[in-house]
């Protein structure tokens, strides 16, 4: 009996070793290109299409990372720090490209690959893929938040934060759904919210070359607005603990009149709450001053090639295929992620499935970019901590504190909360 068990254990061990060795799968034949990126419902179809078109040059294998950005980054960072050669194409959030390039984890794009990645690509997303004037990634999709509002409650979408708060208060007084739902938890989403308001107010968090903390008058004014918003009684009770998807769910369940969120909420709402979706409209994100349009922080994903990839040539080709115009259109229509190639917006198919495309393109042409720095993650962490919960912001004092802690983060001194 014992011998049988031992033999069985050995057999299992051999099988495990065998299967893990097979993962590499590149002893002759088609090389496997491992694509590591967060979940996108229909990305597998894009991958299949690229594989069919590759004509045996490579076979992309879609490895799904966690849903939340922090989880995605942590997993990739740990494997890259260990020089894992099992990753080829990396789906990087726009804020990670400088960091990964500075850490020497991703390869520079050059020659024909570079020209292809830059052709027709919007300037904002492209800026996020550069580091020290070199291109380190190809923008796959961009993203920008919109103001979603219930047209059965609000006849005219608010143009500014003041107007939005006022409209919400009016609705509250009438006993109607009134909440402004958005992301206020201590994480990147709160920094995006703050960056959008700060840039819309003409403020700067860092100086122009990204070497010093600035926090000028515009940045302080944004702190005031965020504080007022959080204390005006128009947010949901869990505002300071809310991230993207819970915000969407909260709005879908009917409690809110406004939602500030990414376009993914649109296809999700069509599916999960079609009755509500009929009344939900969108508008440009609220501005700080009525005379100056808002400038909204862009998000999105870039595709980079790992330095430790065993097949860099095929990896570049695979990345280009995954983000070509046709596939960007497919992903926009099916997964709600906005394209980075401008011409895609003009495609007639886009109009039906993506009715908010004009508003998005309008925001994308005059975007707010998050501070470009390899230390962005650390800057973001200290900002999120200083702004959390938003109701506790004391504008002047918080700005002063941030000047110090952002400067420390830039110099990789100091402690991250």
């Amino acid at each position: 009996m014992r011998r049988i068990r031992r033999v069985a254990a050995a057999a299992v061990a051999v099988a495990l070793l065998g299967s893990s060795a097979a993962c590499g799968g590149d002893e002759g034949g088609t090389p496997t290109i491992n694509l590591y990126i967060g979940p996108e419902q229909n990305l597998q179809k894009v991958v299949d299409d690229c594989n069919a078109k590759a004509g045996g040059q490579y076979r992309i294998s879609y490895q799904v990372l966690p849903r939340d950005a922090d989880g995605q980054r942590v997993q990739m960072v740990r494997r890259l720090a260990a020089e894992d050669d099992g990753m080829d194409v990396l789906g990087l959030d726009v804020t990670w490209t400088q960091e990964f390039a500075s850490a020497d984890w991703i390869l520079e794009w050059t020659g024909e690959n570079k020209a292809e990645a830059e052709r027709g690509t919007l300037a904002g997303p492209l800026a996020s893929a550069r580091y020290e004037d070199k291109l380190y990634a190809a923008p796959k999709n961009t993203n920008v938040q919109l103001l979603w509002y219930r047209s059965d409650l609000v006849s005219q979408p608010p143009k500014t934060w003041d107007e939005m708060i006022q409209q919400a208060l009016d609705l509250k007084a009438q006993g109607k759904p009134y909440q402004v739902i958005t992301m206020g938890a201590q994480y990147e989403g709160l920094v995006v919210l703050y960056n959008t308001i700060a840039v819309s107010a003409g403020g700067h968090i860092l100086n122009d070359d990204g070497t010093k903390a600035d926090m000028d008058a515009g940045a302080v004014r944004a702190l005031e607005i965020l504080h007022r918003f959080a204390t005006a009684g128009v947010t949901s009770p869990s505002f300071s603990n809310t991230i993207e998807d819970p915000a969407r769910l909260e709005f879908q369940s009917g409690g809110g009149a406004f939602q500030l969120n990414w376009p993914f909420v649109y296809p999700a709402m069509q599916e999960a709450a079609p009755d509500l979706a009929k009344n939900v409209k969108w508008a440009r994100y609220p501005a700080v001053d009525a005379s100056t349009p808002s400038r909204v922080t862009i998000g999105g994903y870039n595709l980079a090639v790992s330095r430790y990839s065993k097949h860099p040539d095929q990896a570049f080709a695979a990345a280009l295929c995954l983000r070509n115009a046709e596939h960007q259109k497919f992903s926009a229509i099916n997964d709600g992620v906005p394209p980075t190639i401008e011409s895609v917006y003009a495609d007639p198919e886009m109009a039906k499935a993506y009715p908010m495309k004009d508003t998005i393109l309008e925001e994308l042409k005059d975007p707010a970019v998050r501070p470009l720095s390899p230390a962005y993650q650390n800057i973001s962490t200290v900002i999120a901590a200083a702004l959390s919960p938003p109701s506790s912001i004391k504008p002047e004092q918080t700005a002063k504190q941030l000047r110090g802690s952002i400067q420390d983060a830039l110099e990789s001194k100091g402690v991250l909360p």
Partner: protein
Amino acid sequence: MTSVADRGAKHRAETLSKVDKARLSEGKRAERRLAWLLCAPAVLVMVAVAGYPILYSVWLSLQRYDLKFPDEREFVGLSNYVTVLSNEIWWTAFGVTTLITVVTVAVELVLGMALALIMHRTLVGRGVVRTAALIPYGIVTVVAAFSWRYAWTPGTGYLANLFEDSAPLTERASSLAIIMLAEIWKTTPFMALLLMAGLALVPEDLLKAAAMDGATAWQRFTKVMLPVMKPAILVALLFRTLDAFRVFDNIYVLTAGANDTSSVSMLTYNNLIRGLNLGIGSTMSVLIFVAVAIIAFIFVKLFGTAAPGSSEEGRR
């Protein structure tokens, strides 16, 4: 490990007659050699998997080493320790960790003792009672933490809905209370299990004799049971204190450290894994290691904690 073996061997040697001593100590020495040989593989593995990382993190803690800036790696001596130990965030996290440790271990000791007495005295369905009591401990902490989080989130949560218009996880005091509640809920059964093993050490005769002498139930508990159980209680406290000091999962899921609810482990994770700052992060992990070592030292040397059965008291 050696001290336990040593003491055991010495104890045995003392009980042997002096005539046999010389002959047997020869055998004893051979026995000890064999013991070392048998231990060697385990010791080597321990050195490789535990010793090496500890030394390596001490080495890293003496450097400026940020993965984002690989070219700026340099030896900086103790300056990382100065940075961390003079930082308000670190001390806030240290305070939170200490608070959670003290409160949860104290509450768990009381509840665990009550639970242990119940489990010990149950006559009907003993197996069922013990299994039921152990369920929280069997659930993966992260999973349990998620259900606590949803329970305390307005809208989805039955607990949050008890309080009108409030989101307890968005405020510091209530977040800390919820974190401690989740910790206590999860590990009280473990405490009870250790204490139940201690209860088994209390001889029935002793209790009966005390009862005969007119001791009340409370007197029997405090004057007879507690002193006899002391080694078991100390072991339980030691295990739980070390465990509680490393609290991570519940905080990670419930608040992710928002509103100053980070523990030192959470802070270390943020600096090391998310911030990619190996220097500062390693410094923190070395400091945690030192703190844990101090706790263990206090328990073992000052309170005289020992593994059950290895000390004189445990031999009863």
